[in-house]
């Protein structure tokens, strides 16, 4: 029996979770543990269930069976504001209809923290400004959110997550339609926050460079897990992604001094 404060107690524990729509099962008996402080990546081919799994974690999808606990509390037993105080989410694409300003969008991070009639205090304002500075959007705070470029939008949403002051940041392919520079920038920004991150990735090399741990999902099941070096093997790439590739080491080492696997794809499959 370990105590709550033990360092290896998972922050988030997904226990035998299954989910599906209209008799079609999408996730089968998923088991995932996210330890505090880790940057964990979720990879898998299109339609494997990456977004469905993440949606279960931020309570958009309710699992058919199984349990998800956060700090040992069932997430469906928590009040929705209380859960939102601890878990922030950056989505792939965020539509915005009526020209909220960038500042307004970032200030939304306060939503779960404020009671109905309370107003924005000076310290809230300081937090918002600090978040804007952290993501480097000082010049854009009065612009409308819709007028930002894709990379700036994702940075604004990360700033919103910073204002939310979460313990866990969930990101669903937050860089999938950004240029290379912004893919790296957005992910390094998320990494620099010092919170636990669980993110799905499209780009496997980016995932390898950023993550402490990787999970591979295929057909709604977790097939591989471990460090990037353990997970990203030529066999796994052939088996799960159906590509022929060579895995070498990246010339750079990770911050912790570990080697980073680097994938080179081969072409000509006909």
């Amino acid at each position, binding site marked *: 029996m370990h105590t709550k404060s033990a360092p290896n107690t998972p922050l988030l524990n997904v226990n035998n979770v299954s989910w599906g729509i209209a008799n079609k099962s999408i996730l089968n008996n998923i088991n995932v543990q996210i330890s505090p402080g880790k940057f964990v990546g979720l990879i898998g081919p299109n339609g494997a269930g990456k977004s469905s799994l993440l*949606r279960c974690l*931020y*309570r*958009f999808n309710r699992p058919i069976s199984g349990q998800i606990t956060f700090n040992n509390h069932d997430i469906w037993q928590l*009040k*929705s*504001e*209380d*859960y*939102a*105080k601890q*878990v*922030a*989410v950056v*989505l792939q694409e*965020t*539509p*915005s*209809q*009526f*020209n*909220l*300003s960038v*500042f*307004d*969008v970032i*200030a*939304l*991070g*306060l*939503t*779960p923290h*404020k009671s*109905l*009639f309370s*107003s924005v205090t000076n310290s809230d*304002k300081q937090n918002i*400004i600090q978040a*804007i*500075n952290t993501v480097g959007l*000082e*010049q854009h*705070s*009065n*612009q*409308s959110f819709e*007028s930002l470029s894709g990379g700036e939008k994702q940075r604004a949403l990360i700033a919103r997550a910073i204002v*939310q002051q979460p313990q866990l940041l*969930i990101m669903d392919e937050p860089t999938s339609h950004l240029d290379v520079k912004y893919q790296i920038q957005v992910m390094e920004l998320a990494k620099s926050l010092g919170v636990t991150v669980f993110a799905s990735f499209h780009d496997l090399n980016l995932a390898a460079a950023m993550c402490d741990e990787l999970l591979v999902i295929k057909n709604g099941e977790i097939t591989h897990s471990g460090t990037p070096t353990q997970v990203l093997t030529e066999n796994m790439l052939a088996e799960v992604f159906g590509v022929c590739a060579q895995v070498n080491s990246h010339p750079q080492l990770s911050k912790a001094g570990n080697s980073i696997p680097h994938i080179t794809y081969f072409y000509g499959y006909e």
Partner: protein
Amino acid sequence: MVMNNMSAVNTRHSLALFISIAAALFSLFAALSFGAADTSLEDVLNSFLLSNEASFNTRIIYELRMPRTLLAFMAGAGLAIAGLILQTVTRNPLADPYLFGISSGASFGVVVLMAFTGISAGFMLSTAALLGSLAAMSLLILIAARQQSAQVESMLLAGVALSFLFSAFTSLLLYWSDPQAVAAILFWTLGSFARAQWATLWLPLVVIVVCIGFMLSFRRQLNAMLLGDESAITLGVRVHRFRILMLVLSSLITAVLVAMCGGIGFVGLMVPHIVRFFISQGSVAGLLVTSLVGGTFMVWVDVFSRSLLKNQELPVGVITAAIGSVFFLSLLFFRKSKV
């Protein structure tokens, strides 16, 4: 840098709020001097200052024009804020209180009353309109509450379908009614503030003030809805329940106003968009300015309806639609694209 930007935004919002409050107060006051009887601003001022003097002008101003102007203001403010809320929670720029069949329900109630009892004026008429719109509103909420997955779509489609359904029944009853009833119902659907009385003014006042209070307190959740349901859920908003609550509040405002003034279209659709051209709707100021601008606009519409033609009153709905669409179109045409 950010601080400077922010204070600039705050100043702009305070300025917008200040201007709209000033314009609203001035309009409420100035509107009292217009009408069939010849009164000047001076007469209005006198009737305020020398209130014990029961002159003819004073009585006109106190007993006829003032309740009427106040009702017009409340109607404009209420419809504008209801429109803003519905546009926000459905994320549909075309949403407006009348899109959801609430006014068709009211017309149906009125026509039923006229066709079966022959009553064509008075308190009963408002009651029938209120019952009709509450019926439409309950049907709509029933459908929206059942649908969890595609709530916005079913709300919009159900609203349009309900409005056609009630219009069909209304037309059917009118087809069998005499021409006089047809004229009466037409006048009623086009809207008028002529029925305003001090005795009944408290009802829209209470409903609108309570609903606006609720909406202000939920402003963060409203903003969160603008970035999509999924994003709102991650911010701890219980999206489905919240949308229904907002639908109930805006329907209540609309139902009460339709019952008192008939169908006044376009304000709820247009005013929120006009205000959005100038300030972000995300702030308290945005919500308040929207309702103040709606109210001020309606006060002047009522003035026009009373004074454009000698000895005759034009239907309010005609004027709102005419002025509103021209203004809106020119705003769309001349607006500089924002950076």
